[in-house]
């Protein structure tokens, strides 16, 4: 019997969480984890799923490979706990480590990801947010064209649009994850949107105005 992810985490809640550790802030958890690795488990449990999906969205790796990368991400994070900047959100920090580890893994395979593994609804989120379309369901007919448009975006635009429209991160968080100034992030999003609109018009998904 296949157990849903949410059920799995509910059934297997570790001891630390039953003690109310989930109520602590991430910064407090980081401080606790420095003294005892068992305390790090709460952070892993909280972020393993979002990190898994984030890596899948920005890469073309199989689930098994992504799980290995997720493990590597948390080991790196554990080693670097003393370097964690309290001015950052822990989520931004762990996303940054995940992004860098994924890019390293992609480089090891000597290739940039030509396609990413975005679900249909995620593709539509990017497309609709870029084009300001109101009727998302109407676009489902042209899904293959949408996939082609998003897949063919240069990687630097695609990753920033995934963070903004799929991961729902704000500018500050994207800035911290990518380590790029706010103006650069805004420019990447704006240029990415323009590219999507241009290609959508070419593919007759949007009308010229």
């Amino acid at each position: 019997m296949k157990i849903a992810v949410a059920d799995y985490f509910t059934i297997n809640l570790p001891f630390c969480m039953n003690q109310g550790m989930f109520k602590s802030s991430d910064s407090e958890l980081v401080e606790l984890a420095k003294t005892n690795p068992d305390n790090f488990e709460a952070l892993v449990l909280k972020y393993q799923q979002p990190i898994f999906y984030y890596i899948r969205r920005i890469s073309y790796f199989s689930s098994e490979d992504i799980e290995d990368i997720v493990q590597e991400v948390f080991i790196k994070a554990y080693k670097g706990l003393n370097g964690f900047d309290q001015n950052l959100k822990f989520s931004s920090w762990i996303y940054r480590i995940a992004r860098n580890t994924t890019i390293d893994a992609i480089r090891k395979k000597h290739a940039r990801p030509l396609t990413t593994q975005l679900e249909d609804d995620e593709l539509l989120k990017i497309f609709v947010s870029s084009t300001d379309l109101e009727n998302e369901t109407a676009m489902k007919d042209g899904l293959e064209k949408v996939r082609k448009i998003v897949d063919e975006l240069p990687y630097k635009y695609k990753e920033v649009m995934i963070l903004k429209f799929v991961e729902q991160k704000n500018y500050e968080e994207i800035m911290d994850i990518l380590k790029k100034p706010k103006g650069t992030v805004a420019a990447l999003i704006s240029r990415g949107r323009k590219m999507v609109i241009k290609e959508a018009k070419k593919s007759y998904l949007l009308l010229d105005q």
Partner: protein
Amino acid sequence: MEKDVSKKVIDKIKKEHIEPDPAWKTNLSSYVFWLWLSLLVFLSVMFLSLVIHNFAVLDGDILRQLHLGRFVGFVFMSAPYFWLVLFALCFVFGYLVFRRTKSGYRYSLVLVLAMFLFVIFSLGALAHYAKMGARLEREVSNKVPHLHKVAPLAKKRLSNPEKGVLGGEIRILNSSEIQLKSFVGENWTVHYSEKTVLRGTHELQKGIEVIIFGKNVEKRVFDADVIKATKANEKLRPRMEGRKPNSRQFRMKRRIEPEGKN
């Protein structure tokens, strides 16, 4: 994600006795960047003080003499390009290194540039007023043998008779003629008259360094319109224009004058 990796992560940490790296180790790259940044700011300040020192020779007297158009041309001709390029390189690398520090990416381009310009120009101006530019130029030209080929001394660049500017040291002085050894080592005869304007000094003396504005009339012969004592002489002979010399200056004047009147 179907598998819970938390157990694997914690087991690996325990099994391999992995511990959080000490703070100094995780922050090492940050310290290295700050060290680089400090070094580049220091170098930028030093090169800027050299640039200011080189431009400071072009003071108001030269502007008045050459008029604006010619003055601007003269500035371009005599600009210390070697130091300017080094300053620009250090400035740009400093900016890039700042961006690579732990939170350097968080600041806007305008803010970072404004901050950099303010800090470097303030320190550069202070270094110039502390005479570091002049000292540095002297030290560097003494210690680096062929540097003068790419970075001529400030006063040497001011010696350009074809453009109507000649600089050098007065070797022989008489009532209408100066024998001058130019900053580039050439011997020149300079004619002057009552109409010639003196600046920076109230009288000409043997041994002082001057910049002469006028006309190159023939080979190694120059007609002077304005003769200006350079700032290098100010320590030996303070300016007397418009004020009475104090006793110390008076003693210095007395000591210099007998040699000066040939």
